[in-house]
Every structure is written in C-alpha cells, then in structure tokens.
C-alpha cells in the first residue's frame, strides 16, 4: 500500500525536503515519485533510507553510474535537473552526496544561475505586459500573477544567496 502527500518546497529548501523524505522513510514510507507538488510513497516497515537531492543539469550516464557504484539508488528526477537519490540507512558509507563546503556551494551556485535566468525572463515578461497595459481586467490579472511570481523568485534568490554565504563563512 502506498500514500501520497501534497507539499510545496522552494528549491532553496532542498535540505528541508531531504530531511522530510528521510523522516518519512524512517516511519516506513518511502518516496518514489513526484508530480506537480504531489509526493508518492510506498510502504515497507522493514527498510529505511536517507534521501539526498542533487541539482545538476545536463548529466550523462556516467553520472548515474557513479551514484549507483557508491550505493546511491536513483529514485526519480524532476525537470531533468533535480535528481533524487537514496541509500539504506544502515549502509556504512557517508550519508551526504556533498562532502565538503566548496562543492555544496558550487551546487547552490548552479541552482542560482538557473533561477536567475528564469527571473530575468520574468522581468522581461512583466515589462512587456506593462507596455501593453490597457486597464482591462485581464491586464490586472496577468500583471498580478507575473508580479507575484517575481516576488516569489526574489525570496528564492535571496534565500539561495544566504545559504551560499553561510557556507562561505
């Protein structure tokens, strides 16, 4: 038997998500699929996994092979960029896919670069929408939506920046 749960995590909350998935697994519910904010779990009280998520674009077969060799099972990937891995809790190896601060920062910077690109295109869209402003209901609506998403991205980017600074202390 399995269950599903709806949760919303920002990319900057990747560590909170990892901790949540690991805790669910400790209770016998193991994450295996993600779709539109919905997390799918299968039940098995006899195992327990540690979950870690890697952000990496344009990965090759050797990437997944390396994780597999190191006893990390590939669970699923989201938009070909967020790769979910898990390893059994009683594995003797380390339970972190990033073992030093330098590489953890590089992964956050990669993430920052992608979200910065999306953020900039949102700004362009917002400007275009404002230039076409006619004062109709639809104008208020579409500008409102884009503006809220921009605010969300400002929050996301500033959180990512804080995390990078935290590692570089």
């Amino acid at each position: 038997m399995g269950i599903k749960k709806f949760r919303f995590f920002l990319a900057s909350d990747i560590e909170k998500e990892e901790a949540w998935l690991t805790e669910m697994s400790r209770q016998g519910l193991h994450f295996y699929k993600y779709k539109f904010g919905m997390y799918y779990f299968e039940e098995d009280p006899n195992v327990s996994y540690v979950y870690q998520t890697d952000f990496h674009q344009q990965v090759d077969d050797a990437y997944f092979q390396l994780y597999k060799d190191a006893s990390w099972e590939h669970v699923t990937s989201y938009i070909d960029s967020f790769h979910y891995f898990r390893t059994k809790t009683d594995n003797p190896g380390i339970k972190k896919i990033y073992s030093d601060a330098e590489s953890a920062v590089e992964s956050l910077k990669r993430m920052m670069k992608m979200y910065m690109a999306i953020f900039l295109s949102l700004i362009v869209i917002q400007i275009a929408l404002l230039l076409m402003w006619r004062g109709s209901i639809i104008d208020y609506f579409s500008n409102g939506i884009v503006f809220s998403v921009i605010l969300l991205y400002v929050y996301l980017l500033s959180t990512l920046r804080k995390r990078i600074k935290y590692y570089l202390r």
Partner: protein
Amino acid sequence: MAKAPEEFIPLSQATYYILLSLREVRHGYGIMQDVSEISQEEVKMGPGTLYGALGKLEKQEVIIKAEVNDGERRKYYKLTELGKQVVQLEYNRLTSLVENAKEIIKELGGEKDGD
C-alpha cells in the same frame, strides 16, 4: 589555453586527493575508494562532490578521459602532464608549510616526545 600550474594552488583537500588517486587510470567510484584508502579513512567523498570536481578538472585539462571499455557506462580518468605538475607543486607547498613550522611547534610544546 590551459592555466599555468601555479594558478591552481592551493588545492582543496578533495581536489588534492582526487589528483593523487589519478596516478593510475580510475573511474569515479575507484577514485572514492582509493581516496578513502590513501587518506586512511579520513576523507570520505560524496558522489556529488566527486562528479562536480571531475567535470571541472577535465575542463581545466588537469585530468583527461582515458579510453577504457568495461562494457558499463563509467568514465575513466588519468592525470595530464599539467595535472602531475599541479599535484607536485601542492605537495611542495604543503611540505614547506610543515617544515617551516617544525621548530616553532616544538617551542610551543606541541610535540610531546621530541626525537
């Protein structure tokens, strides 16, 4: 154009050990095992850290892919001439750090049983 070996110094602990392990042709997991061995279990490298480092070092021409066909999807690497110079330079730097401090540490009483 590749950078001069001096520009890579100092190396991070992870990079230093990766380069040491590539004295022989190895694939990713082989590097992880060797690093753990030569560091006397002190350095346990995560796959995320290693994969990122390999990509970067290959781009910088410090390491190069080696042609090995094991029928699997693994990538094998070895040091380039530049890589050998980099690891040698870092070794020299670390040695002189230790040498320069030796007398001072003795004075500080850090060395319990002096020889």
